[in-house]
């Protein structure tokens, strides 16, 4: 039976029967898309629709949300105004052979309540780097082995920030090793003078509500979508 089962799972595009260890809550975006697809499709539906993710307007029939497996970085030298430094790592090796990545979107979530903030309009600077060299065990070295991908300001009012990482993720799955990302959040330049009087730790208090990061990835399974093209 197990051989029969594994052959059936293979037909469904799975190399083995999954056995989740610590199941996480279903991300709301996936639940929304799933609920929307439960409504019966129109009879004149184009068979190619199944190979397209309408919500993101990209080709694909598989959407995954990867949890971040990176760790916080505790720098030996204190860096003024730097509130948070973290490695981000998403294990894309679970993509099956024959899957083509068509979209990757990073989400950084906060759980803060802006109405109870001591610094309601306070701004932050976010920088996202691509890691280009493997860090040595036990060293927080962030030397030249990183490339700046994103630099932007944001206010505490944002509950979540989204970044398009499609090019980087495509590169990870085709050309180069996935060495992860480095996220830095610092008090913005405007807050620097306030930091002098209030102290940087106090201004960073607003970023304590940093919740988590995840990577939404859309892929197209050539095996599953080739069949519907042939029929058409």
């Amino acid at each position, binding site marked *: 039976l197990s051989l029969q089962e594994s052959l059936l799972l293979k037909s469904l595009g799975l190399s083995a029967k999954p*056995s989740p260890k610590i*199941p*996480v809550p279903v991300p709301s975006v*996936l639940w929304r898309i*799933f609920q929307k697809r439960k409504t019966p499709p129109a009879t004149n539906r184009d068979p190619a629709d199944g190979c397209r993710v309408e919500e993101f307007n990209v080709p694909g029939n598989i959407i995954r949300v990867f949890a971040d497996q990176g760790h916080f970085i505790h720098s030996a030298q204190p860096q003024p105004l730097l509130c948070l430094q973290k490695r981000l790592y998403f294990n894309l090796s679970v993509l099956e052979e024959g899957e083509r990545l068509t979209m990757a979107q990073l989400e950084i979530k906060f759980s803060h309540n802006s109405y109870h903030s001591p610094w309601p309009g306070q701004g932050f600077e976010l920088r996202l780097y691509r890691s280009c060299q493997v860090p040595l065990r036990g060293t927080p070295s962030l030397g030249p082995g990183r490339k700046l991908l994103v630099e932007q300001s944001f206010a505490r009012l944002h509950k979540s920030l989204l970044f398009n990482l499609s090019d980087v993720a495509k590169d990870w799955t085709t050309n180069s090793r996935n060495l992860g990302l480095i996220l830095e959040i610092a008090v913005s330049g405007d807050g620097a003078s306030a930091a002098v009087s209030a102290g940087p730790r106090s201004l960073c208090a607003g970023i304590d509500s940093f919740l988590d990061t995840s990577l939404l990835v859309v892929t197209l399974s050539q095996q599953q979508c080739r069949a519907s093209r042939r029929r058409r």
Partner: protein
Amino acid sequence: SAYNVPITPSNLCKPRRLYISFSDVGWENWIIAPQGYMANYCLGECPFPLTAELNSTNHAILQTMVHSLDPEGTPQPCCVPVRLSPISILYYDNSDNVVLRHYEDMVVDECGC
């Protein structure tokens, strides 16, 4: 004489109800939703004459003709799915990521000969 065997409408080729429960096949610990779905299946005969309701292919018409000449050597056409629809499945993979995957051809909507 084969033509005289009465075929009641309930024996004709058509979709029959089949609910697939993922817990029945032991997949409930990794499939999040749906817990099961109405997949249906095709069953029934494709007798002479093949009416329009039986969604017969031209091949089925000719196979019926040959079957009437040689019932032992050539079987009647089969009752098979002719229109299927997709479903999406939410599941956990081996790394505890949540995956939403679209699968074509999962629900039998119409059968034919």
